[in-house]
């Protein structure tokens, strides 16, 4: 007996730095295609179900970071395997009970087309609900980050704003960002690829180097 599943039996997951799976979806803001977000950053996130406690706290929190994401040229779209009417009722309920208007569209993915394309259903956790997945898609439609959380853990919104800042900073300056980086902190420059470049790197002024392979600079 084997406990290793054949690769063919596993759902296909999207891959980083490849085009995000295109979709054409029914949402609370009308029919939307992935292509409608062209030239903008996009966070696509899934939640297990409408009218559930952790998801409700998350929706309120996503609405709270929405203005910060907009400042960064980033749109937001939610998804669950629920009906459009359930979504409408839930966002209206959140506004009525919590006083928070949900400003972003929510995909009603009853046929699971989008959830399947993005590998949002993790059968080991639930066969009927999407997990708490987050996908960051850049203005060219390339999938740049994926984060999967279990059903039991509400997400940390500050991390998504930080992630957008980090990706945009990396793209604009051809650098990387170290652990726990926040805007204003020093950034990491790429490690030298030759011994000659390594010698030059350690001699370079204005850098904060631990050694030749780990140097930071201010932007």
């Amino acid at each position, binding site marked *: 007996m084997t406990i290793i599943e054949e690769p063919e039996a596993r759902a296909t997951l999207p891959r980083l730095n490849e085009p995000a799976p295109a979709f054409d979806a029914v949402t609370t803001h*009308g029919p*939307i295609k992935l292509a*409608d*977000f*062209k030239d*903008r950053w996009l966070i696509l996130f899934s939640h297990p179900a409408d009218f559930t406690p952790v998801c409700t706290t998350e929706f309120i929190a996503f609405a709270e970071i929405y203005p910060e994401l907009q400042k960064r040229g980033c*749109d937001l779209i939610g998804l669950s395997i629920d009906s459009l009417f359930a979504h409408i009722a839930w966002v209206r309920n959140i506004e009525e009970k919590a006083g928070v208007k949900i400003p972003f569209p929510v995909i009603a993915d009853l046929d699971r087309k989008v959830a399947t394309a993005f590998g949002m259903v993790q059968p080991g956790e639930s066969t009927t609900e999407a997990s708490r997945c987050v996908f960051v898609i850049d203005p060219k439609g390339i999938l740049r980050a994926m984060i999967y959380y279990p059903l039991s853990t509400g997400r940390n919104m500050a991390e998504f704003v930080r992630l957008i800042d980090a990706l945009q900073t990396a793209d604009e300056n051809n650098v990387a960002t170290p652990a726990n980086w926040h805007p204003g902190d020093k950034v990491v420059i790429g490690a030298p690829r030759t011994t000659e470049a390594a010698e030059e790197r350690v001699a370079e002024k204005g850098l904060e180097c631990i050694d030749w392979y780990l140097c930071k600079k201010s932007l």
Partner: protein
Amino acid sequence: MPCVRPDGSLSTSGRLMLEAVRPGSTTEDVAASTGMPLYRVRSILRELIAADYVSEEGERFTQTEQGAEKAKASG
């Protein structure tokens, strides 16, 4: 089609969008004029094109004759 009803009438967003389309408008022009996000502009314009209220040439949009009549009647 949420912005164009089966009888051809328009939702509030659909009407605002149609009224904002000037000859040769871009999606950015319409977004700036209506204050709607680009994804909504693109989605609603697609509906208005399907209803023959707006025509598209390249990436520029113009009210059709039928669209101009609808905008006038809605206004």
